[in-house]
């Protein structure tokens, strides 16, 4: 119990170090507690499916458990674990795209805007509600290209810096910034009716 209290005070990097050196399962559990919700949010915003998101975050944690030694202390732990989760989410998206037969008519973003307008028109008071807003934002996010979507989520929802995103995605800062701006522009176009 005392060990747990002591561990709770440690930073993410100190905890992973403890887990790497002493194989302390409590350190691992604390890291899981700290990152399960942010990772769930990130993966859910990227994929839009709660069950699949849960599986992917579980897989992320298992990978973290199995490959703890591949983490190097030069990077932030959050950067490392988000990279794992992001890669698994992208793989899932690719797998899903291979299986899914998308209809061309549904890909038109203008149709989607109309759909949101209709919802707003039907229930204007409810549109202000956070859950409805969240649903609309989620649908709009899924319309943005995945290469932009991931970066927008990391920057504007998860609050990472450009530098951290650059480290996670292995892209230059310039590319990160331009992609985020393109993603935002597309998202703004999709969501122009709700703010």
């Amino acid at each position, binding site marked *: 119990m005392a060990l747990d209290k002591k561990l709770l005070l440690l930073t993410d990097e100190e905890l992973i170090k403890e887990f790497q050196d002493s194989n302390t399962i409590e350190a691992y*559990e604390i890291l*899981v*507690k700290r990152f*399960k*919700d942010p*990772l*769930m*949010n990130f993966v*859910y*915003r990227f994929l839009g499916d*709660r069950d699949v*998101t*849960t*599986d*992917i*975050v*579980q*897989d992320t*944690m*298992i*990978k973290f*458990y*199995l490959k703890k030694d591949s983490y190097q202390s030069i990077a932030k732990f959050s950067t490392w674990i988000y990279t794992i989760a992001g*890669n*698994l989410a992208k*793989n*899932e998206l690719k797998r899903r795209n291979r299986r899914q037969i998308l209809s061309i008519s549904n890909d038109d973003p203008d149709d989607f805007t109309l759909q949101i307008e209709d919802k707003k028109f039907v229930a204007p008071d409810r549109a202000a509600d*956070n*859950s409805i*807003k*969240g649903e609309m*934002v*989620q649908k709009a996010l899924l319309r943005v290209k995945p290469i932009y979507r991931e970066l*927008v989520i990391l920057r*504007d*929802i998860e609050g990472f810096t450009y530098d951290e995103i650059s480290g996670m995605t292995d892209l230059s800062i310039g590319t990160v910034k331009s992609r985020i*701006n393109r993603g*935002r522009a597309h*998202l*703004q176009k999709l*969501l122009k009716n*709700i*703010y």
Partner: protein
Amino acid sequence: MNEEKFTEDNEFSELKKLLKEIPKVKAPDNFEFNLMTKIQNQNFEVKSEKKKSIFSWALTPAIGFAATLFLVVFLFTGNDEIGDNPWNTTPRLIENNVAEVNSSKVKISTFRNPTELKKSEQAKSISQNKNLATNNKPQNFPFDKRTSVNLDEGMQPSVNSNSSIGTAQLAGASTNNTSPFDGFFLREVEKYQREDSLENLKDSLRQNEIPE
């Protein structure tokens, strides 16, 4: 830099505010329990990782292509080195084999000394090797006009009466080395019952005797 940040903030400030406000998705209550159960049971089946079979390397296109190429090369060019194709070589005539056996028998009988015999055998094997190339060439059909009988002619009664009765021989009766197989011929009906048949045969053999 500040200017850039200012414009960026102005341009998407509303959007960013909206994105910050949306409710956060949380992990299910049993998330940790399920995770730790998986870890304790060693149930590590990460979705993204494919199960690798033992023969997965064989499915690699490059390796498959190389293996196919090797097989093709081995089948179509390797046979020449392994041995002669029996379908492409001319069969050795039985006549030659018998002739060789006969000649060797004759020679053995003439050798008195065993060392002399050994030497002669070595020389013979060398000459055989030399003659292999010539033996493999297509040869004429080994029928001798002198010892063979044309069946068409033989069937005609006029010819039959003139020549064939006297000249026909038993198979293998030829003493020369031209051919042990003399082709088709009309066999004389032997008249064992008659007493003078042997006498007649003797006479005919004397007439057709070929000097050795």
